[in-house]
């Protein structure tokens, strides 16, 4: 290869022309396919969710949830067929954006749906806003700002899944009611962690409680021993948000050091007691509290039917992702039906989305004027039922909106955003400082 620089002009350019021709030909043939569209066209939904990489389990469960609903209605609404085109976002923002462009510009989808990673949601948001394509966030992507008036707000975006702060507020309220006023917290050291634990701290301060200690392990941390040893044992309880296996490892070491009998644990968002992890945790998971907008053990006809159907297909209990996908699909179909399937009229479709109201496995669903879901929050506690471990709901906060327990005005009146409060959460004066 020492003669690398002596490449002849002709063969270099030849190769480039071939590459260009391949692109040109393959796209020309796709154009022909598109021209053969029918008279009454189907509604095409571009579903963006990770099916590879670390987020794949959440993505696949969310896709399955949506498919289960579309199967119930025979993939048809208001006389139009529903076509679901799934694209793998790989939890990489640039890939997610390219996929969104592909879905909108090549496949001509009328609606974008799904999205697990918040970074991907932030990347797609601007594109969907420019193209005026409805974006229904129906999977995990929970960045608070997306549905709060501000620079990121998007009039064509709705979110039917969740946001970052509401399970935190539920956790704070429940712990105060239990009489646990001094809380030691742990959160993973990244944007989602600060958002979640900041929301918890603000709600706790507002209710008269206090955070006594903050710890931020790196998101890829393996050894939680030091964090367990450092834990403030004078606190009344521990609250934590450690996603992606971190919570699981923390609980194991927490139990090994014999702290479980001394300190109650609140797992905000149920990351450690995520259903697939429960068999690994075994008996050490019993008694752990968590907050989330779903539990497979909710005793309502809607959920029992859904959980049973889900179990028959997958042989395991659903986490929150499958019902989230199901709710997104139903909200879409209900809205499409309300406007006679005319989803191309973006403004009317979004208005119809914001007007949907129905019962779901998660509980009653409605949307606020910003497009964020109003739903129930559940405090769950791990129980052993037979040989299985289950997150049994022990308290319910029905129909709470994204600012609960605050109003929008009160939420906006604080000086610091949650992510800016890292390291200052023990100081309630700063947390609640007004603008």
């Amino acid at each position, binding site marked *: 290869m020492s003669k690398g620089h002596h490449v002849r002009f002709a063969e270099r350019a030849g190769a480039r022309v071939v590459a260009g021709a391949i692109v*040109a030909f393959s796209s020309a043939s796709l154009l022909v396919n598109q021209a053969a569209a029918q008279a009454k066209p189907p509604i095409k939904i571009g579903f963006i969710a990770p099916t590879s990489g670390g987020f794949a389990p959440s993505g696949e469960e969310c896709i399955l949830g949506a498919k289960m609903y579309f199967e119930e209605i025979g993939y048809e609404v208001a006389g139009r067929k529903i076509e679901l085109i799934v694209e793998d976002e790989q939890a990489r923002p640039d890939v997610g954006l*390219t996929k969104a462009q592909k879905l909108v510009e090549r496949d001509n989808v009328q609606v974008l749906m799904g999205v697990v990673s918040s*970074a991907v949601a932030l990347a797609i948001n601007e594109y969907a806003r420019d193209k005026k394509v409805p974006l229904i966030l129906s999977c995990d992507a929970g960045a608070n700002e997306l549905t709060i008036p501000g620079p990121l707000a998007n009039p064509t975006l709705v979110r039917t899944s969740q946001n970052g702060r509401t399970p935190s507020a539920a956790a704070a309220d429940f712990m105060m009611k239990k009489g646990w006023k001094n809380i030691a917290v742990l959160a993973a050291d990244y944007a989602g962690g600060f958002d979640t634990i900041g929301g918890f701290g603000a709600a706790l301060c507002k209710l008269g409680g206090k955070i006594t200690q903050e710890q931020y392990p790196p998101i890829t941390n393996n050894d939680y021993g030091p964090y367990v040893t450092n834990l403030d044992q004078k606190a009344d309880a521990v609250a934590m948000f450690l996603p992606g296996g971190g919570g699981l490892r923390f609980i194991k070491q927490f139990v090994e050091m014999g702290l479980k009998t001394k300190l109650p644990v609140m797992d905000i968002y149920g990351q450690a007691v995520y259903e697939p992890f429960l068999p690994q945790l075994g008996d050490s998971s019993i008694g752990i509290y968590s907050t989330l907008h779903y539990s497979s053990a909710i005793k309502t006809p809607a959920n029992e039917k859904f959980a049973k159907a889900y179990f028959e297909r997958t042989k395991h209990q659903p986490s929150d992702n499958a019902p989230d996908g199901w709710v997104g699909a139903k909200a879409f179909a209900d809205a499409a039906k309300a406007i006679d399937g005319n989803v191309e009229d973006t403004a009317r479709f979004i208005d119809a989305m914001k007007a949907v109201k129905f019962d779901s496995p998660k509980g009653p669903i409605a949307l606020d004027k910003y497009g964020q879901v109003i739903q129930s929050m559940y405090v769950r506690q791990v129980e052993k039922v037979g040989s299985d471990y289950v997150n049994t709901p022990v308290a319910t906060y029905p129909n709470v909106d994204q600012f609960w327990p605050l109003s929008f005005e009160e939420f906006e009146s604080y000086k610091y955003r949650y992510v800016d409060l890292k390291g200052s959460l023990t100081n309630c004066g700063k947390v609640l400082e007004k603008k």
Partner: protein
Amino acid sequence: MRRLLLPWALAAIVFVALPYIVPDYYVGLVTKMLIFALFAMSLDLMIGYVGLASLGHAAFFGLGGYTVGLLGLKAHVSEWIALPAGVLVATLGGVLFAFLALRARGSYFLMITLALAQVVWGIAFGWRTLTGGDDGLPGIKRPTFFISLADQTAFYYFVVLLVGLSAIALTMIVRSPFGLALLGIRESETRMRALGFNVWRHQFVAFVFAAAFAGLAGALFVYQNKFVNPAFLHVVMSAEALIMVILGGVGTLLGPAIGAGLIIFLEDFISSQTQRWLLILGIIYVVTTLFAPRGLIGLYRDFVARRSKP
């Protein structure tokens, strides 16, 4: 001479005519291919001509991108300053990294570049008030250079122009006496030293050039996507560039450019067809390594050589 010019003229026509032939989406995809072609070519300058494989090249890509994004979004600086500043910051990053990394060779060089790039990634990830942490910086505007490049077609031509000029510049660098000296260093450092060449200085200059072009690619990619995120300077990005170079053909400039275009196209195309796309891409890489160890360009050359034999 006419035979040599014809393919180039054809290629130029294809690139100019492309937006009139294919839908908008493909214009965007080809823009992405071109940007990664430039990124891969800049890395090839390191691997193919200096013989130093780096696992931290995305750091310069990201430095260029973050500079453009921050200056545009937070300082409201004109793109006439922001884009050159992006290249400049990447170049300075290259100077700093070169001082630290050029002490080592082989896998140690690989490790040091990886570590340095992770430091930059860590800063982008951790310094929330400046970089937005892992949310990145959304809402970056496309630039206006005489005309607005907000439209994808206009931006495509801008990228064609800059990547084309960069490719010519890179070709001139590797064909200059300096480039020949680099090849000599790649083959035998001790011999070149004995011949009186300052080996370290040559490597240093090549490293800085590679960083500058990677910075330009990163700045263009941020304008293309309208946001910047720590993923842009993550080790995965560096590794992807490395695969592009190896797949296309190390030390050929055109090869890595083709490798970049092909990988971007395959990632997009296959991942739309099947959920098992990673498996298929993996098989393609393994097959290329087994049957075309000198990359696609090597394969093509063997083919031409075999046909021209009687």
